[in-house]
């Protein structure tokens, strides 16, 4: 029993050590960012605090000045703890009150954005993979598709987004979900296309010759060789694509008069002059992106391990 306990504790300790080893660099960077953020808030909010003090004919000590920059209602740069409090008030606090899906809740808006992001992602990934297959198997589509795919990414999405909304309205598509998903797909198909072209062409000439000696059909060489060989490339590009899909959705929510979604919250915060709301929406979007990338990363580990490709 005693021995069992010891090994158990040891295993737990090792697990904790491993976690710390991975978390420490991330936490260090986070601490540095928060530090810089505080410094920035202090410096950027100082003029207003000084102005106020002058009007009230007061002189502020360094400590008082610092304090005065940390809790303004409309700061140029809100301090991290202010953003955290704001974020908590529109997420956790509302969830506790049972109003997670109210129109003020970021859980609701986050869900709206997430839903569109996933639709756009699915659409973009499908298009990217189909394009890559076409390019791999046909020289004509390689020469015709690829240049256009590259050109498509040079057009600023902010310019294109309103056109997509107008056009989809003109062809009778109701609501903003579909055009937003199209904008999202537009941004995220490209990394998948490029990654999969590379992945499907990863097998060398010797690998292809081997299948030729078996007299394998084109479908067999695709499903048995090219597709499995492309998996590591696929997951790498999916991580880029999911982040791009989220950016696309948020951009799609900005100029379209949408009132739901994190992008709409950023715009509304801007219009009403509430920097806390903008920053909270920004941080919420960042966290969402982080979670999505981590989910894809986890999926990558599971799939590649099941395929025996991760050691």
């Amino acid at each position, binding site marked *: 029993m005693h021995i069992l306990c010891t090994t158990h504790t040891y295993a737990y300790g090792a697990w904790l050590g491993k976690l710390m080893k991975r978390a420490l660099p991330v936490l260090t960077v986070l601490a540095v960012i928060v530090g810089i953020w505080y410094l920035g808030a202090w410096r950027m909010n100082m003029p207003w605090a000084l102005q106020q003090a002058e009007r009230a004919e007061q002189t502020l000590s360094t400590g008082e000045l610092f304090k005065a920059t940390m809790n303004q209602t409309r700061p140029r740069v809100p301090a991290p703890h202010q953003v955290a409090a704001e974020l908590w008030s529109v997420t956790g606090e509302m969830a506790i009150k049972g109003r997670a899906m109210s129109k003020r809740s970021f859980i609701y808006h986050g869900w709206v954005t997430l839903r569109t992001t996933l639709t756009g992602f699915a659409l973009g990934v499908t298009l990217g993979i189909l394009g890559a297959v076409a390019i791999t198997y046909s020289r004509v589509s390689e020469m015709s598709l690829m240049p256009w795919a590259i050109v498509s990414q040079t057009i600023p999405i902010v310019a294109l987004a309103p056109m997509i909304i107008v056009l989809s309205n003109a062809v009778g598509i109701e609501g903003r979900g579909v055009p937003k998903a199209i904008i999202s797909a537009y941004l995220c198909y490209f990394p998948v296309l490029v990654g999969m072209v590379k992945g499907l062409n990863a097998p060398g000439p010797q690998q292809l010759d081997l299948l030729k000696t078996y007299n394998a059909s084109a479908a067999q060489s695709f499903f048995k060789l090219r597709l499995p060989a492309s998996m590591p490339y696929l997951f790498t590009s999916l991580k880029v694509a999911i982040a791009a899909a989220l950016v696309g959705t948020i951009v799609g929510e900005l100029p379209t008069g949408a009132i739901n979604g994190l992008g709409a919250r950023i715009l509304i915060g801007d219009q009403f002059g509430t920097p806390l709301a903008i920053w909270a929406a920004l941080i919420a979007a960042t966290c969402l992106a982080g979670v999505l990338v981590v989910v894809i990363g986890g999926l990558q580990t599971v799939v590649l391990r099941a395929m*025996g490709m991760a050691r």
Partner: protein
Amino acid sequence: MDQSVISARDLDLTFQTKDGPVHALKGVSLDIEKGDFVSFIGPSGCGKTTFLRCIAALEQPTGGSLTVNGLTPEEARRSRAYGYVFQAAGLYPWRTIAGNIKLPLEIMGFSREEREARVNKVLQLVDLEGFGGKYPWQLSGGMQQRASIARALAFDADILLMDEPFGALDEIVRDHLNEQLLALWKRTQKTIGFVTHSIPEAVYLSTKIVVMSPRPGRISDVIESPLPPERPLEIRDSKEFIEVAHRVREGLRAGHSDDD
């Protein structure tokens, strides 16, 4: 001598390149009988690999005639007449060793039971029993190459074509694999075409040694080996062995004499 397994007559293969035509093969004539172990040896650019690839219908000759089992190479490839072993093992990292050996069997439509039975049989042939469930990266280079030979043997073609299969392995592993290959050849009675640039390897393994020379790629000597079928590794110190090796070396040198 009535029917050769592989028969080449005046075979030419010219590649058109930017710097003009390159004669990879010129006037190559050769007969390989059933059960022969034929080595192709020569410096790089002599066309030994190209000739093997012509037999496998991976290259198209530009002149002359070539038959494999009495068929054109293309027909022979479609009828899956040969197993091919490349210099790199080229195992799929996402398949286990057994899974890799099953690859040709799946493509050729063998039943599930048949696949299992054949995998076990060929794993035994290459001395890899018990390694079927391992992934390629868990095996040494020599073991990976043996697995790739097992993969080529799995569908039981009569001809085995090997392109420098042991070229990337160290001397000791190579000796061991050569011994095993001879034993395997004796047990399976296959016709083997074997490309190498090692004189001892060619002499030790072959019943027939084809010495080739470059520019244009051609056969400069064909040596029928006088060595007995039983060949322990020590045979390499015998008088006959040294004589054959000497003749191969002479042939290689003659091929080089017209070099700059």
